[in-house]
């Protein structure tokens, strides 16, 4: 299973988040499966490729991946990211206590990134080049730029170099800027926006995991999305992950419930659960697989109760009192003072369907078309 994390490791991507993380991991999986050469790098793990195939097919997101094939990126990016630097030597490098450990193969696969990030940081800072710091990818509706780890001046130099070399190729395109966990100041953001503007590119949306960057982007007036903060990992959490992976069997088949789940009603099934109707506060839905609600979801929901961390919760109106996936719990935010609980009996203000999943040990809730490949810019457009 370690092949899941491997390609990401070796191309030293800035650890992606949210929808990206899943896409990339799946894409890498597929690469690992389809390209026979790629699996050669995993010496001694004969079981691994099979498992990866199984897992990727078990993922509900899989059909989406097909439309989101890797080569689309590569057409724009000069090198396929996973070939950019394929040094397996990196594994030997000590990268803190939490380096992906061969004794726990499952962990690296499921709860990927924070530790990878640290090791990448070392990698990148030792020899930063443009190709490593800045990633430019073409999407169907714009350009995605990912900023990796490195000093800001180097980032700017690398970006400018890349843009110059592209010689107006990206002109008039809208950019989705992924800054990762890096804290960026307002000045730096403005500088970046100006550089892009010089190439007649506009910043469509900024994705960040840093609160500071988020505030800065707001101040500058850019559309910004704050993603889940970096997941905190510790040994117990990892162990729990490991155990639940051991137990975790994915659900098979669907259980369909038509009607309203009201307070006091409890639905517990091993299959995926599909509710056509509402799940009211006080009701519980528990499934070993996914929970899909065609309606409002406001009760307590537990997907992947058997320990399947890939389980999803999706609803047309996702406002659960409590949301659990495998062993991760998310509770609804407290209502603002002076307001009745928005998450409780009040019709929600936003209308978009949402999907919840585990990303880096934390439950991330995204609007459905953000989770969709290529949905980033589409979302920004849709909101005007």
């Amino acid at each position: 299973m370690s092949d899941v994390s491997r390609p990401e490791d070796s191309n030293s991507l800035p650890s992606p988040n949210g929808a990206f993380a899943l896409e990339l991991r799946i894409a890498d999986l597929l690469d690992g499966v389809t390209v026979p050469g790629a699996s050669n790098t995993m010496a001694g793990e004969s079981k691994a490729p099979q498992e990866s195939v199984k897992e990727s097919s078990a993922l509900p997101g899989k059909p989406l991946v097909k439309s989101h094939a890797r080569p689309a990126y590569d057409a724009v990016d000069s090198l396929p990211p996973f070939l950019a630097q394929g040094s397996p030597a990196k594994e030997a490098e000590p990268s803190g206590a939490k380096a992906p450990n061969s004794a726990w193969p499952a962990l690296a696969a499921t709860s990927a990134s924070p530790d990878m990030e640290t090791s990448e940081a070392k990698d990148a800072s030792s020899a930063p080049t443009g190709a490593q710091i800045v990633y430019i990818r073409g999407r169907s509706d714009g350009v995605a730029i990912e900023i990796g780890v490195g000093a800001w001046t180097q980032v700017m130099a690398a970006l400018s170099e890349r843009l110059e070399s592209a010689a107006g190729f990206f002109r008039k395109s809208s950019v989705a800027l992924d800054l990762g966990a890096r804290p960026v100041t307002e000045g730096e953001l403005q500088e970046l926006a100006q550089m892009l503007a010089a190439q007649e590119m506009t910043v469509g949306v900024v994705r960040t995991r840093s609160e500071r960057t988020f505030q800065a982007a707001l101040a500058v007036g850019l559309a910004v999305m704050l993603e889940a903060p970096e997941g905190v990992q510790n040994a117990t959490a990892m162990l729990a992950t490991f155990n639940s992976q051991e137990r975790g069997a994915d659900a098979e088949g669907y259980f369909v419930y038509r009607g309203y789940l009201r307070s006091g009603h409890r639905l517990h099934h091993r299959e995926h659960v599909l509710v056509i109707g509402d799940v009211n506060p006080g009701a519980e839905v528990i499934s070993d697989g996914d929970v899909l609600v065609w309606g409002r979801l406001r009760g307590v929901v537990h997907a992947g109760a058997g320990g399947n961390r890939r389980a999803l919760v999706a609803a047309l109106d996702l406002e659960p009192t409590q949301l659990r996936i495998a062993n991760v719990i998310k509770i609804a935010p407290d209502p603002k003072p002076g307001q009745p609980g928005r998450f409780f009996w009040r019709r929600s203000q936003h209308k978009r369907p949402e999907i919840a999943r585990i990303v880096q040990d934390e439950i991330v809730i995204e609007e459905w078309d953000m989770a969709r490949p290529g949905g980033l810019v589409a979302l920004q457009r849709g909101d005007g």
Partner: protein
Amino acid sequence: MTGTVITITSGKGGVGKTTTTANLSAALTQLGQRVIAVDADMGLRNLDLVMGLENRIVFDLVDVVEGRCTLQQALVRDPRAEFLYLLPAAQTRDKRDVAIEQMCAICRQLVTMADYVLIDSPAGIEHGFHTAVAPADRVLIVTTSDVSALRDADKVIYLLERDWRRQPGLVINRYNPKLVNSGEMRGIDDVLDILAIDLLGVVPEDERLMLSTDRGTPAAFDRRMYVRRAYENIARRIMGVNVPLTDYYRPGFRGWLARLFGR
């Protein structure tokens, strides 16, 4: 011709089951219906107080069940109406003294005498609740729009659907248009959004209603009461007349006009 048994319940206490029962009974009689109100809240009876009939009680429901009197003897007539009777609950006895089958048997007799039999259910979802709901043809859920009342109402709806296969109607009580307009309280839409059952009516909040309850005069008998109109509308809807919902959202002059003309 037999009448309809309507049970008024809520789950939570204090949301106005008894007041609603008393006022709906009064409103229905004023619309020319023959009504019998039954208090199923053994041991904590107060429908008789709200209807102002306490001093007339001689026998009660448990006496009927245990054969100490006939059903006709236990019925207390309301002198203000043409045909409004109260079957009081026992104050000195327990909820367990009336079994579900006995209650059903009594109601089968009552529907031969009246057009509507309204049962005031006790709070909670225990034996007393099931006793009150079992004979019902229709169930009315009374709720206020606060969180706990809604949660309990939701649970009651679930129980009704599961155990009794009943689709209840909803009465929103103590509705405060001012607070709803200022966005501080859940509106009708928000309540219906959660409970997702048919709305039978909305009763606005009125502190004078509490006073009338205290005096033992149902508001429906009091021509000066503004909420009388709300109960009358609910009664009409129970009788199958299509009455448009009063628009409490409209403040200002038009709202005042609407109030003046009683709509």
